[in-house]
């Protein structure tokens, strides 16, 4: 029975859309997702939005998981991983609710995940030409972070802050139990490496956000960079057991 179920569930893809106050743009994003990746299931993680994000998403007929209080991007995305793991999805793609990650690029990530035999594929905006590249101070911060993460992973990383990623089932299980809290993307790559998983990059276009405001503006890129570098250094000090923390019962099937 379980084997049969496994066969049926194979190749199922879940698109995880973390969203905080994105009522304006989430509708068109979900339409685009349906148009470009019709076979995938979509779950919107509403991070305790104060606007109509959840109801707008619900009207589009996708799954909506509403968090009782704001957990930040890390906690929201991890909710998606836990859902994907519980429901037996083979792979998952993170597409941010602000519309920066164009749905037409999702198939490219998924193809790379299957062909590349890696556990995680990161969509990099700096490997492609054109598209949205962010402000100067941000790019500088990202470059410094890239070099830190590249040296730890001992492989070139060109966009370690990109949240536009595809995950295989093993990586989903890993992140369901352990995912960094805020500004999680660069740290997540380091955790992957420490746990013995593999990652790769593919070039993608990114857009300007459709709605909402970035949480990282003005002087914040520098604060962000220092905080993330510190978090990564602390991660390196931590002992890493491959022993899996068990997920709390209840939300399991």
């Amino acid at each position, binding site marked *: 029975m379980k084997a049969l179920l496994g066969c049926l569930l194979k190749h199922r893809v879940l698109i995880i859309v973390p969203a905080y106050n994105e009522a304006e743009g989430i509708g068109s994003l979900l339409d685009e997702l349906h148009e470009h990746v019709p076979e995938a299931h979509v779950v919107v993680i509403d991070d305790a939005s104060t606007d109509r994000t959840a109801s707008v998403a619900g009207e589009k007929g996708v799954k*909506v998981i509403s*968090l009782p209080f704001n957990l930040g991007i890390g*906690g929201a995305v*991890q909710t998606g991983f836990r*859902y994907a793991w519980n429901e037996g999805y083979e792979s998952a793609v993170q597409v941010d609710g602000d519309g920066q990650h164009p749905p037409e690029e999702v198939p490219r990530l998924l193809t790379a995940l299957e062909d590349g035999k890696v556990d995680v594929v990161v969509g990099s905006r700096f490997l492609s030409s054109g598209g949205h590249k962010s402000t100067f101070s941000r790019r500088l911060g990202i470059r410094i972070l890239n070099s830190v993460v590249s040296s730890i992973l001992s492989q070139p990383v060109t966009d370690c802050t990109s949240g536009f990623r595809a995950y295989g089932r093993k990586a989903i299980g890993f992140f369901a139990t352990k995912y960094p809290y805020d500004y999680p993307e660069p740290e997540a790559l380091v955790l992957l490496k420490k746990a013995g998983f593999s990652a790769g990059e593919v070039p993608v276009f990114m857009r300007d956000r459709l709605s909402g405001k970035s949480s990282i503006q003005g002087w914040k890129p520098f604060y962000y960079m220092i905080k993330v570098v510190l978090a990564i250094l602390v991660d390196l000090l931590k002992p890493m057991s491959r022993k899996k923390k068990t997920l709390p019962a209840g*939300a399991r099937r």
Partner: protein
Amino acid sequence: MLSWNIMRVAPALAESVPSQIPWIVRLLIAATSLLILVLTVELIRREKLKEHYALLWLFSGAAIIVLASFPEIPFFLMRVTGIFYLTIIFFAAFLFLLLIVLQYSTVISQLFDQNRTLGQTLALLEERLRRLETTK
């Protein structure tokens, strides 16, 4: 032997060490730490404080009582370090407070993690409940 050596190294300091601490000072210190101990025990008794988090409070109270009742210990520390009597007592109290605050930070971190998992689980269960209700 040890204290004699130190006295020779710092004779001026050794002379400045009084042989007696006014009893009122010792009484004040002992009373303060007794108050901490009694309050802690009373809070545990009324189940307003978990024993686990009270241990450090009990240790602090006990340690300062010991320092107040056996002046030989602070006298010895005074000779070794050249720190004044009251400063030694305050330093001991400060160290314990530092430990208590550090313990609180670990407790907060733990609660933070548990809170996050709890919120996620609640949201996942809510979604599942909605799904089960609509398929019925």
